[in-house]
């Protein structure tokens, strides 16, 4: 019995000891960089970047570390706090960039930023106190996806880049009526359930709009228009979309809606779903997002839209000898070569002008001039302007979004409540 007790104790000690060790600083030998990514099976961009980099730097290996797409930031923050995060990690959007930067979890990469091409968009969001903390490799923009076949069936003219939100609303109603007359159940438009579908445009397109001002009056016209479209039956109501867990991929891909404002990341998804048969096969195109006023419409102006850049940052706990390699990886990810490689899989790189020729030659991609214009010309403002207050303010505005679009609260009352909460819970701190 005594012997077995001793054995048990020894076993427990051995177990706890092995759990504590396992660090391998790899101080010599070839350099291996670790790179964070999410849903690797369905998100090929990380592998594309790793392979492209490997081709140019055969002596440096890149290993991917997979995270869960919807809990990426939570998992990454936990890993960083535990000192187990990969050498290079992705800034999935700007909402948590403040947390990483302020928490000293990013290495200064100003020298990489200094050598970037002029066409790289989204860089300024990563600049704090005159230094750059991450390098963008993707810069999506919200645009208007439209189904050319449904427009033709309804006998409505295709978008021409001249639309304001009022024009968009008129066409959505017209499409709904005419499609119904033609015996098609599709609706004119689909607005996904995310708060960004109303708030992102409102923040980007309204002059003087500022989250941190605590004044959310700029949201009102955008919500009034969305509610009017719901009431007219020209788009699925918010309640039906949430309770039935509608996906935007199915709403547009299965031709339940003729138009849909969405980010350019959907290009890659739509191309692959059409190729695989998960989406119907039909001709589609992208047009600039509808504008607040006529002044930014038309192909001679630059349409204003929004989306956060996606960037790469370096974990400051990286070992000294790997820093140069990691920086050259960041430089590669923002380079013209990487932009073309990313465009080759349908992804919108930070340098859209370089990538346009590649992305529009993909099978199933639109070929019209307006789609190309839309892809390359845009004034894309950040959805989450970097600040200490952005994450809590966005949570307050998310409550406003669900309350207003579900019809639980009138827009004026909801705005007043959100402003009170912002002042009381966030901005006073």
């Amino acid at each position: 019995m005594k012997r077995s007790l001793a054995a048990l104790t020894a076993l427990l000690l051995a177990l706890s000891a092995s759990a504590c060790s396992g660090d391998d600083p790899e101080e010599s030998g070839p350099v291996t960089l670790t790179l964070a990514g999410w849903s690797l099976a369905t998100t090929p961009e990380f592998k594309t970047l790793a392979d492209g980099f490997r081709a140019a730097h055969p002596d440096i290996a890149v290993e991917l570390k997979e995270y869960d797409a919807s809990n990426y930031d939570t998992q990454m923050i936990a890993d960083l706090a535990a000192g187990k995060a990969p050498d290079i990690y992705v800034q999935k959007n700007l909402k948590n960039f403040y947390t990483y930067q302020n928490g000293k979890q990013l290495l200064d990469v100003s020298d990489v930023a200094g050598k970037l091409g002029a066409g790289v968009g989204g860089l300024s969001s990563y600049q704090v106190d005159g230094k750059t903390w991450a390098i963008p490799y993707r810069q999506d923009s919200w645009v208007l996806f439209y189904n050319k076949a449904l427009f033709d069936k309804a006998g409505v003219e295709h978008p021409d880049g001249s639309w304001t939100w009022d024009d968009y609303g008129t066409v959505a109603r017209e499409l709904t009526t005419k499609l119904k007359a033609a015996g098609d159940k599709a609706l004119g438009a689909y607005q996904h359930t995310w708060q960004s579908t109303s708030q992102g445009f409102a923040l980007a397109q309204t002059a003087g709009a500022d989250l941190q001002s605590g004044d959310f009056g700029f949201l009102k016209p955008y919500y009034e228009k969305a509610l009017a479209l719901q009431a007219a039956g020209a788009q699925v109501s918010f309640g039906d979309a949430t309770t039935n867990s509608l996906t935007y991929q199915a709403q547009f891909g299965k031709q339940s809606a003729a138009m849909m404002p969405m980010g350019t990341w959907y290009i890659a998804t739509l191309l692959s779903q059409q190729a695989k048969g998960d989406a119907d096969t039909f001709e589609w195109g992208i047009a600039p997002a509808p504008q607040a006023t006529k002044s930014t419409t038309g192909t001679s102006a630059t349409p204003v839209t929004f989306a956060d850049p996606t960037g790469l940052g370096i974990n400051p706990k990286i070992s000294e000898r790997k820093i140069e390699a990691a920086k050259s990886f960041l430089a590669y990810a923002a380079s013209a070569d990487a932009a073309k490689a990313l465009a080759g899989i349908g992804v919108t790189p930070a340098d859209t002008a370089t990538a346009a020729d590649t992305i529009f030659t993909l099978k199933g991609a639109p070929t019209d001039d307006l789609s190309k214009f839309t892809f390359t010309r845009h004034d894309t403002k950040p959805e989450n302007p970097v600040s200490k207050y952005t994450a809590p303010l966005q949570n307050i505005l998310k409550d406003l979004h669900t309350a207003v679009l579900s019809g639980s609260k009138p827009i004026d009352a909801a705005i007043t409540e959100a402003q009170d909460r912002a002042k009381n819970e966030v901005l006073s701190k």
Partner: protein
Amino acid sequence: MTTIADTRRRRGRVVARNTAVGWSFLLPNFAGFVILTMVPVVLLFYYAFTEWDVFGGATWTGLDNFRQMARDTSFWTALRNTLYYAAFHIPLTLGVSLGLALLLNRRLRGVAFFRTVAFFPYITSIVAIAQIWNMLFSPGFGPVNEVLRWIGVDHPPGWTTSADASMPAVIVVGTWRYMGYYMLLFLAGLQTIPAQLYEAALVDGASAWQRFRAVTLPGLRHTTFFITVLLTIESFKVLDLILVMTDGGPGQSTLVLSQYIFQKGFEENQFGYASAVSVVLFAICFLVTVVQFVVNKRRSA
């Protein structure tokens, strides 16, 4: 004399060995409990008095978090909603599961089948439950409102998409999910009531209601108490159901305390403040349970 001392020594050794064996059996579980539960809980009480964004050290801020909580309308909304949920979920589930247990405690044909059916919701994945119920509750095409319209309700509620009806909808689903589990506990309790008591009551000419009041309920007292404590704690820390059914919405109409903690901690990285709210939630659960114990003790005295 020597023999007595010997026996004593031997007995002492046996006791020591038995204790050691007992501890060694406990150790794996106990070590896990200490490392994974006790230590974090104790740390939580420390973090509640700090400001901490996970990276680096926490800064001691004294009672600042609690002062902020007093002013924080969202915290009060979450607390109110949690009490709302508990106030309806506890008696409803208690009643329904007791009713089910009484119903299924007889010799019926297929009683095992019906017991299994009642237990089914408890073992079904909560995500699946939320998806299906959300579809049933869908304001436009959901079967629930179809039925309501058919029986003549002109304006059926919007359920999970309306601020007034979202909490009732969640309570209905919560009750439906847990009734089978507590039914099982009640069934076990019912089996322990001696049949002679019912026979005696019958001989005395007691009606079914009288038998229920005078025999069944007192016989179930310990079970009922146990279930009430479990239900109370479960109601106060409800999270998964809310998260997958309404995500706290529309607006803040179904925001509950544990979700608020999750939001503040993991979405906004205010771990100090989130810990402070957790401490409050802990205090509430603790207080309610203590009150229940005291009341129970007084009754049995």
